[in-house]
């Protein structure tokens, strides 16, 4: 397991901060917290956190120290989090997806009610509706807070499209036709991180999401409906199979992770890829400014009206706070974090989950162009890879990868999903009903 535990400079800086004389160390309570995160130093948001932690230590409490445990791999991160939960040894602040696991922790009284905390500090309405929507439970309660504001878009090399007189696809049929034309001309149409299950599940879930938001998955997860009962969801499985069986994914995608996928697109190994604007390197930002790459949102399903928001916006992997360790000092830090999140996010050139004005001078053009569209988003993305029960999440990931390699057909995917939900869902969702 790739785990890195950092005893940060915060400990060493305690003395220096005390000596700096901004706040008297003797007056402040000692507090040491453990943060467990999926973010690594390669993620900008990691540095946003680091900046805020250091600012709190320097400006408010020099005796506030922290340690950070990092597990960058998504699946391994979740596995270790489950170990912490089973061992009754939760970190103080940790990332956790909005799904069955976080719901159960909240029900067991192990998580702080973030909604109440934000209302108490009068910051609830400052958050973007879409970002909060992404981390709210089905009953509207809020026990998680957003990591940031992330959008996911399709990126494409404009030259490839111009060469073949292709228009940016508005519907999924047009998208598949674009891929066919690109393939015929000898290009690899799509770069995809085939080894990461959530990427495959994106393609399966695009159609149901763009037509009905979370309606399908929220019914499917409990077994309220069978997969085949939703015609659009069925088309979603057929879409991924079509892309895979026609070799529209780039060579070697089966073993490519997210970072390699973006690098492959940046190196023009494929014409289209799907990722967030935060992941654009400086070279790619320049390429955007030069008109060499462009973006388009999730295509619509043929026949639907195209006035609905179709940019997946989410808040990243949400954060939870351990209720057992939530004392006055941690509460004070959390308030500081919320009230300074926009300032430090924009300083690092990333979006804040709050709809606050700030200094956007560090933000590249592409981020500003995307942000303009994001302001209108009120409904968040609904991620399948954390909505289902834990056993079905594991199964769906494996099935998604198999479907993305055309090792199974769409019918098998749907049958196996139904079977897994039938076997496992009642245990997790039965109590809520």
């Amino acid at each position: 397991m790739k785990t890195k535990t950092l005893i940060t400079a915060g400990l060493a800086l305690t003395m220096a901060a005390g000596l700096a004389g901004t706040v008297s160390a003797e007056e402040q309570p000692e507090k040491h917290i453990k943060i467990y995160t999926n973010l690594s130093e390669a993620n900008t948001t990691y540095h946003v956190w680091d900046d805020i932690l250091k600012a709190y230590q320097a400006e408010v409490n020099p005796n506030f120290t922290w340690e950070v445990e990092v597990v960058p791999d998504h699946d391994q991160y979740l596995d270790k989090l489950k170990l912490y939960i089973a061992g009754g040894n939760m970190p103080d602040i940790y990332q956790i997806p909005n799904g069955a696991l976080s719901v159960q922790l909240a029900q067991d009284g192990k998580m702080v009610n973030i909604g109440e905390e934000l209302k108490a500090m009068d910051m609830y309405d400052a958050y973007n509706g879409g970002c909060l929507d992404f981390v709210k439970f089905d009953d509207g309660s809020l026990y998680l807070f957003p990591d940031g504001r992330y959008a996911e878009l399709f990126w494409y090399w404009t030259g490839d499209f111009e060469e073949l007189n292709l228009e940016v696809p508005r519907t999924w049929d047009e998208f598949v036709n674009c891929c066919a034309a690109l393939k015929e001309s000898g290009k690899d149409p799509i770069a995809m991180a085939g080894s990461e299950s959530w990427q495959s599940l994106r393609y399966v879930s695009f159609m149901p999401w763009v037509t009905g938001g979370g309606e399908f998955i929220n019914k499917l997860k409990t077994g309220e409906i069978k997969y085949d009962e939703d015609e659009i969801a069925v088309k979603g499985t057929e879409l991924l199979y079509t892309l895979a069986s026609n070799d529209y994914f780039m060579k070697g995608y089966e073993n490519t992770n997210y970072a390699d996928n973006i690098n492959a697109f940046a190196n023009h190994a494929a014409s289209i890829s799907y990722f967030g604007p935060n992941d654009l390197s400086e070279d790619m930002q320049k390429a955007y400014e030069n008109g060499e790459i462009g973006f388009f949102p999730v295509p619509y399903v043929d026949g639907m009206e195209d006035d609905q928001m179709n940019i997946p916006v989410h808040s990243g992997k949400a954060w939870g706070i351990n209720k057992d360790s939530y004392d006055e000092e941690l509460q004070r830090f959390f308030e500081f974090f919320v009230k300074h999140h926009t300032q430090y996010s924009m300083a690092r050139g990333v979006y804040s989950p709050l709809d606050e004005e700030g200094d956007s001078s560090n933000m590249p053009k592409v981020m500003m162009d995307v942000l303009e569209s994001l302001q209108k988003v009120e409904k968040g993305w609904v991620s399948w890879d954390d909505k289902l029960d834990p056993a079905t999440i594991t199964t769906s990931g494996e099935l998604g990868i198999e479907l993305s390699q055309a090792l199974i057909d769409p019918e098998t995917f749907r049958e196996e999903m139904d079977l897994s939900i039938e076997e496992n869902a009642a245990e997790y969702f039965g109590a809520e009903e």
Partner: protein
Amino acid sequence: MKIGKSNFRTVLFFTAPALILYTLIVFIPIVWSSVYSLFDWNGIGTMKFVGLKNFVRLFTRDREFLPALQHTVIYTAAQIGLQVFVGLALAFLLSSLPKLRTFFQTMYYVPVVISSVAICQIFEKLMSLQPLGLLNSLLGAINPAWYDIKWLTDVNLCLGSAAFVEGYKYMSMYMVIFYAALLSVPGELEEAAKIDGATGFQIAWHVKVPYIRHVIVANCVLVLNGSLRAYDIPFLLTGGGPGNCAQLLSPYMYKQAFSSMKYGYGSAVAVMIVVICLIFATVFRKLFEREE
């Protein structure tokens, strides 16, 4: 041999630390897992006693357990071939070197001391398609169709690739053991064979190998035991492979317990791994004891 009272105390004194350690880190966890296997538990809520339901499900409704067992047996056979017999061949080669034996012994031993994670990272890049790894680059220069060989994602290749990497990592450990055993073969046996006109191969096959047979058997048991519980390299390299084509028992146990949060069911799989290891090791030893 009779052990007197004072000798017994001495024996107990020297074996107690190892026995205590073994009990704490092996025996007690096995018993604890066996207890968990009788429950349904997701790690958060309460544990619910279900008796042998997990075991019944394992053998009647689980479509992944038996294929994982099959893959594990194949994987184990590959490890015995790679680690024991290739290790033995390397030991023979090493012992035939007139000079620089220590240098080559050290170089061959390097993979053993490198961590599994690092080895997997290296081979993942070597076998990569995107970007193109060294292995396919070289093979593609011979035959362009070989540029596209999917070592880690082809259902027919990924188990073999993982087996090769694990064999590569550990074969030198057994090479060192065999080398030491070969050095212990009395020189006069070899000389007598030479006088009788035996070739180098005949000396190796008819004199040295029979002499170190007990070492070969012992190493086979060690590899058998380790491979039946193999986890890190197959998991890191393939993650079970597409369609679980490279899924082994230990990663499967991990998946059930920690990914799917079925700690009771995962414990049942763990208990079965212990039982299977005991059966294989016992049968293997009985087979060779009977021959002797």
